[in-house]
């Protein structure tokens, strides 16, 4: 078989992370959270523990961030009455830059992971002897 589930996950994550990079810049928080959650689940299914561990802190942060959002009846994270306070604005922007950095790094990590997990399959058995 040319393709494992893990390799598929990595490939998917690779593509989605590219999207996340833009979302982090534009502060599309809800899609970002969903996508990130989605491939975390995929990695869980693929039993890629190391990758999952690397993503767990961010996942936990997202959960915390969303649960501690201001009282709001609809979905959303930013409160229009406070977002313009320079300190909150600065925090949100800093958060965006940090995530951008994280996603950029993980992009290359997934690329490597994809190549690694799929190359293992192509490796002839006699190499392993």
């Amino acid at each position: 078989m040319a393709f494992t589930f893990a390799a598929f996950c990595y490939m998917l994550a690779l593509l989605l992370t590219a999207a996340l990079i833009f979302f982090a810049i534009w502060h599309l928080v809800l899609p970002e959270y969903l996508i990130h959650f989605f491939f975390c689940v995929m990695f869980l299914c693929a039993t890629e523990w190391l990758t999952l561990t690397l993503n767990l802190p961010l996942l936990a942060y997202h959960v915390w961030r969303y649960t501690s959002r201001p009282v709001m009846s609809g979905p959303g994270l930013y409160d229009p009455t406070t977002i313009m306070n320079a300190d909150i604005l600065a925090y949100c922007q800093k958060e965006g830059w940090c995530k951008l950095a994280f996603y950029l790094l993980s992009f290359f990590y997934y690329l490597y992971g994809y190549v690694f997990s799929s190359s293992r399959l192509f490796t002839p058995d006699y190499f392993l002897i």
Partner: protein
Amino acid sequence: MSTAGFNSQNGTGTGQTYANGPTQNPVALQQTPGVGYSMNHQQAYNPMQAKAPAPPGPGLYPSGPYQPIPPISSYLLGPQVTSYPSSPGHPLLTRPPMGATPSHTPPLSASPIPGPRMPPAQATPPPPAVSSSSYYQNPQQPMAPVWQYNAATPPMGPAPSMNTPPRGPVTNHVNQAAGLAGPLPQSAAVYSSAPPPHMSSRPAQFSGPGLPPTSMHGYTQPGTAPPPMAPQAYQPVRPAYGPPPTGPPSSMKPTLPPTGTSVASATPPPPNVDAQCGGVVPNVLPPTEPDFQEGDIECPGTVAGNGPQAANSYNHVDNRMAGPTQPAPPGRHLGHYPSLPPGYQNTSAPPVNPPMHPAMQAATQPYTQAPQPFQQPPGGPGPAQLSPSMAAMSLQSNTPEALRVVNLLQERNLLPPSPVSAPTPCLPQDLQKLNCSPEVFRSTLTSIPQTQALLNKAKMPLGLLLHPFKDLSQLPVVTSSTIVRCRSCRTYINPFVSFLDQRRWKCNLCYRVNDVPEEFMYNPVSRSYGEPHKRPEVQNATIEFIAPSEYMLRPPQPAVYLFVLDVSHNAVETGFLSVFCQSVLDNIDALPGDSRTKVGFITFDSTIHFYNLQEGLSQPQMLIVSDIEDIFLPTPDSLLVNLNECKELVQDLLKSLPSLFEKTMETQSALGSALQAAFKLLSPTGGRMSVFQTQLPNLGVGALQSREDPNQRASSKDIQHLSPATDFYKKLALDCSGQQVAVDLFLLSAQYCDMASLGCISRYSAGSVYYYPSYHHRHNPAQVERFQKDLKRYLTRKIGFEAVMRIRCTKGLSIHTFHGNFFVRSTDLLSLPNVNPDAGFAVQMSIEENLDDMQVVSFQAALLYTSSKGERRIRVHTLCLPVANSVSDIFAGADVQAITGLLACMAVDRSVTASLSDARDAMINASIDSLSSYRQFALTIQQPGLLAPTCLRLFPLYILALLKQKAFRTGTSTRLDERMFAMYQLKYQPLAFAMLMIHPALYRVDDLTDEGALNINERTIPQPAILQLSVEKLSREGAFLMDAGTVMYLWIGRNCHPNFLTQVLGVPNYAALPDNLYLLPELDTAESQRTRAFIGWLRDQRPFFPSLHIIRDESQLKPVFMQSMIEDRTESALSYYEFLLHVQQQISK
């Protein structure tokens, strides 16, 4: 002419009047609000607290004796005017009120533990002695240097002073003056000499007499006479205290002694004060009255007042706009001090008792000389080369009054007997004279730190407190087709810009050079050409422009008022409807507006009732909409009608409304739907929506649940439910804000109403919130009276529609958080659908870039609004503050009231976003942090005890008052709504009123005399001294008035003098005093007139109506009164002394 008023306040006349205050000491005045100070940080700091007690420098002690700063003077302190601190509720008192004096002392003195007080003994005593000497010096010095300077070497003054002085900041200011003064070069030079005072220590050398502390001016003078007395009185005291609690508080044992002594010690100050007051106080007060009068008087004649002004300025020392502006700086000095000769003689000039002086002077001189030698060394080599000890000494000797060290644990009675006034920034006099009134625009630090690092070091919050739409009795209004603004940052031209030449000016915020338009060259006031710097825009820090059409997005809206009334059974039961209708009927002609004014009414219970008032109908038509889920307007055109055309129908409706719902049995309330309907009705025009609600809304959208558990009211654990339960009201408020609709909420309820959720509707739409707990037309007459008076004010006060406010500040500073009621539309733009004259705002700032090469920074608040007459207007306030580069200068400029006000705002935010205990900790940490950093960085002589600079001596007291304030107290039963309301008020009230709510003023009123009384409009208003909030100050024989802002309590002692009972209260004896008395009978006796005049005067000063409760021992309200005794211990809160010990312990940890 408003300008004039300002000037007098700020400074022109000031020279002498202010003397007490800050003006003269540049350093003293500086305030530094700690910007970057986040509450979080504070906490973080805690652990960090400086543990090291700071080893005493070698030179320290020696320097001590030389200190010019009179210890005594602290008592004299300037705080004459402005704010009346007050705070409402507090924990229960453990102690019996009466027995007080004796019993109390123990706790206070309590910490006898004081083990090793040796040092104190040494340290402290010297000051008194010294002080006396210093005393003289100061007075002389200030005057002398200035004059000599001016006369002798005007040109030199500025330059040398700038560079030479070791204390960079001060000097800088001076320099600035020179540089900035731009418009008037000559004047600048003159001024520079004047202000430098503190700096002057160095400059002084040149001049000869060069005495260190300039600031003392006014101060010293008055003080001169009394000083000798005071010190002596004091010294005896010290021994008594002797053992004071240096160490950790440990257990409080009542070892301590002689209260008597302590009292005695306390007493001395008053005399001094009085001396000053004689001159000063009266002056201060008069101006107040005009405040509330409305009306912008267009006054072309900025200049007009000049001549007389000088005289006036004296009278109206402090606040308000009484004095006229003086355009011409140079002449000014002379005018003011004409009689003063240069040199020492000046001292005697001051109004206070001259007889003493000669002797004093003689005594002084030796001392004065002594300090000089010390200073000189520094002068020669330059400040930088000073050895630390030398630096310390010179610092000490120069210390302005604001920095005089006060050991809070030893000196009691620090509360000044008259209201605390705002410190004056240490700016050159010509700038200061033009500066914005502190009532309108105030900074927590009057000296802005040069860098964020410096600010972090000082650990004080940096921020501004504004009251931008305050009623001003005089306000220059300019009509012109072009409003001159900076082309890059859009700053309005203001008094602090510099003119490079006649045709170019340099913006003081972004430093861009702009052209002066042709039109601006002509001065309409003087009708002269070619003097752009004499235009009213450049002579007034507060000014109003009539805006041309570029400032309109749409034609100015008419005044539109919509009243939304709860008519459920509960509402009818309270009986507010008849009071409301009567008030509107009475004031219908006084509603601000023009011929386009519109009004409308909506009532609601479980359905929404609209009233068709269209012209032509014979009587109002009620339309009921019961589909509250999908609300619609039955006849959109005829619900809001022109007031002038349909006045009779409106009056008919108001007359019939109260009876219309008399029999209603409907108990539900669909407030949410009613608000939506009202929003729909108002959204095409914008306007004001006044909502009267008496119960928790429980039907339809926006329905709320009761969240309060009455058993938790007194819990000392965290208070829950401070944040809104739903965002419905917030979202609706934002919609309203977008359509220029403001919602004012009147909550009249005995039950829990969820103020936290409902308040959002006003908070984000720039409305105001009024709360009348337990309102009932029969059972609670005091509330009814308050409601009536508030309504009257509410209906008739000025109003601005579709307003926005932008606050700009000099490049390098940035605003990061706003407090108040508004919606923040972009990082520096506040959207205010309505703006009213009673709204205050606060902002926090940070320093993003170093302000290295600046001597001053400016802040400008511009409020663009539509007046009720349909005019688009811009009101611009500009504040100019010096930049300081040393921690001690920043401390010297701290404005303790502004800091307290800003911290209160920050703490409200913190309690909502985090928790109440978090907020309380943060406030405590704020006081610990600033005092410990004072000790660490600004204090040169380490002494035991809890040391604070004079300007911050009330800080721990105010913090404690905040902790015991309704908003933040724990452990005392407080209803959630009242707590939330108190929080709203802290954020929304202008500082002067917020301070009264935090720290009430206590007066003894059974022995009012005309001595030192004010005379306003031929009424004599007695001025009793403000007492400390301690039961110790009460006596059974007296009657005491506590003014807590929105409420006043008159406490009658059991053995109160029968004269007072009969002449003022109209009862034969104490037992005959009725239980629920809330009115003073109008008796025709001198005592009664005095008392009523005093209370009436207090009431006139504020836009809301404080109800008066007369309390005797058995009254229900007595616990409330006793809880306001902030300095006493209660079951759940520390006494002031214990709190100080706690702070000290934390600092020395």
